[in-house]
């Protein structure tokens, strides 16, 4: 028997396979296809304090082995989430990690406090410090000081709730941001959110996306995400949840060996909606193939020939 359980700070998961925020709806959408008990956890779509209509369509476009999205955090706001989505999410036989985005530092803190006060029943809270598709400076995780402050202040208002900082790759040195999140008290960081990109229709001389730019995800970004995870893992300051282009068991194992303590399946949920559960089922075999009896024993075991 391979022990699949992992701990990231105080966040405990019965296996390391999570599904990424924004790629799994509010879980209910996936219920006809996915046995949630097989997953380490689910992360529902980002919630903002007030309702947001989201960006004008087209909101997604496929690119070579990937896709650009600019959904724009289309959601009905935190109170609606607490009243309509959380009661369902609480019933799921797996860890549920909430995901919030504030428009300002204060709003992040207010939202975290509200989640805490709601008697949330969540296994953790992921702070979306890195959505590239909304105006108003939501890309907080480009600044280490801001990242540290938001994490610390959220930590202060919900001291018992494991916190995960979701980081943007659109920075010159992601290690500095991850170190700041760790310093602020994050239990883990998720690396990475999408890479800002764009698609053009040259015949019409127009951008394809309604928002002009969007976030690139899918297999195309896996090497970039893997390198970011490896860099953060080298800090040995904070556990890393690897995310970016993961769609197969091999992808998962690559991230674990490179230093991720857990992973999130994202865009693959769109094009292969049962990928997450199939990968989770196959994971013990791959861990055993490395001669390990627990998944935690393969994390960060990358060796670089001298």
């Amino acid at each position, binding site marked *: 028997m391979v022990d699949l359980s992992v701990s990231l700070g105080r966040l405990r998961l019965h296996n390391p396979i999570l599904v990424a925020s*924004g*790629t*799994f*709806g509010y879980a209910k*959408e*996936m219920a*006809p*296809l996915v046995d949630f008990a097989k997953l380490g956890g689910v992360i529902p*779509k980002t919630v903002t304090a007030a309702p947001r*209509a*989201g960006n004008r*369509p*087209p*909101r*997604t*476009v*496929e690119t*070579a*082995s*990937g*896709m650009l*999205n600019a*959904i724009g955090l*289309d959601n009905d706001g935190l109170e609606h989430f607490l009243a309509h989505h959380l009661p369902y999410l609480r019933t799921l036989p797996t860890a549920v990690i909430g995901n919030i985005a504030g428009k300002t530092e204060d709003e992040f803190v207010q939202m975290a406090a509200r989640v805490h006060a709601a008697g949330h029943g969540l296994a953790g809270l992921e702070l979306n410090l890195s959505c590239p598709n909304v105006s108003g400076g939501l890309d907080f995780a480009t600044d280490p000081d801001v990242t540290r402050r938001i994490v610390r202040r959220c930590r202060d208002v919900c001291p018992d709730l494991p916190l995960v900082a979701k980081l943007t790759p659109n920075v010159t040195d992601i290690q500095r941001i991850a170190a700041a999140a760790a310093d602020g008290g994050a239990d883990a960081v998720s690396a990475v959110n999408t890479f800002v990109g764009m698609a053009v229709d040259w015949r019409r001389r127009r951008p394809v996306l309604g928002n002009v730019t969007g976030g690139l995800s*899918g*297999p195309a970004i896996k090497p970039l995400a893997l390198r970011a995870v490896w860099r953060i893992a080298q800090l040995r300051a904070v556990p890393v949840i690897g995310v970016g282009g993961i*769609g197969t068991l091999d992808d998962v194992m690559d991230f674990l060996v490179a230093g991720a303590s857990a992973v999130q399946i994202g*865009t693959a*949920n*769109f*094009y*292969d*909606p*049962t990928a997450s559960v199939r990968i989770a089922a196959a994971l013990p075999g791959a861990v055993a193939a490395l001669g390990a009896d627990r998944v935690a024993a393969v994390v960060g075991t990358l060796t670089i020939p001298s």
Partner: protein
Amino acid sequence: MYHRTARVAEHVRLADRTYRVRLDCPDLAAAIRPGQFVMLRLPNTSDPLLGRPFALYDTVLDAAGRPVGVDVVYLVVGKMTGRLADVTSGTSLEVWGPLGKPFLDVGAPDHVRLVAGGIGQTPFLAFARELLGTRGFGGDAPRKRAAKVTLYYGVRTAALAAGVEDFRAAGVDVHLASDDGSVGFRGYVTQLLESHGTGGPLVGCGPEPMLHSLARLATAWDVPCQVSLETPMACGVGACFSCVARVKTADGGWDYKRVCVDGPAFDAAGLVWD
């Protein structure tokens, strides 16, 4: 809902750049209803990466009348459909569905008028069978809902008219229109419909300007009208929030609704047209 690899039982050309692909998938075929759709994806490749939504064209029955497969009809428009056209019988596609909601209930009218533009005829064959009570779907026994079904079908040119004989064989009265006059009425399908005057409920599928014209006619005639929308989708199941359309809300405003789970058929009077 099913997600599986399905064998291509048959793949035939119906018209210029238009094909019908038949998939062996008994469980999905037994569950799907007219107006719903499936996502199809080419296996073993990440380019094209995402599945694409395709309306149910028809269910395939075995000799005993049991559903064993689904037919999808598509027009080659881009990378995925271009590769799809090269798929041969005996190979496999990834499929998930049934997705979306069935067509809205039309009640029990004497006459239902289906209005299609471009490749928009594809959801209407199964719907015509259901309305005429010649086939049951989703485990239901056949039940006649409308005395007569007419298809108004507009294409750019005659070579693109696909499946006309399937509709006629199903007992549908077909009126064609073409932009270049190469078949049927010369002009837009909505102009042809308008020339026939008011009638029973309208059901539209096709390019947005056509659907907008149809919605205007429905308002002028004060007849019910639903339209089946096509928008770019990444997942088809409601997870990605890509495929939104503007739908009027009770407070006089509007909100983006997901075409994949809240549609694809919407009451035309409830949509905000650009």
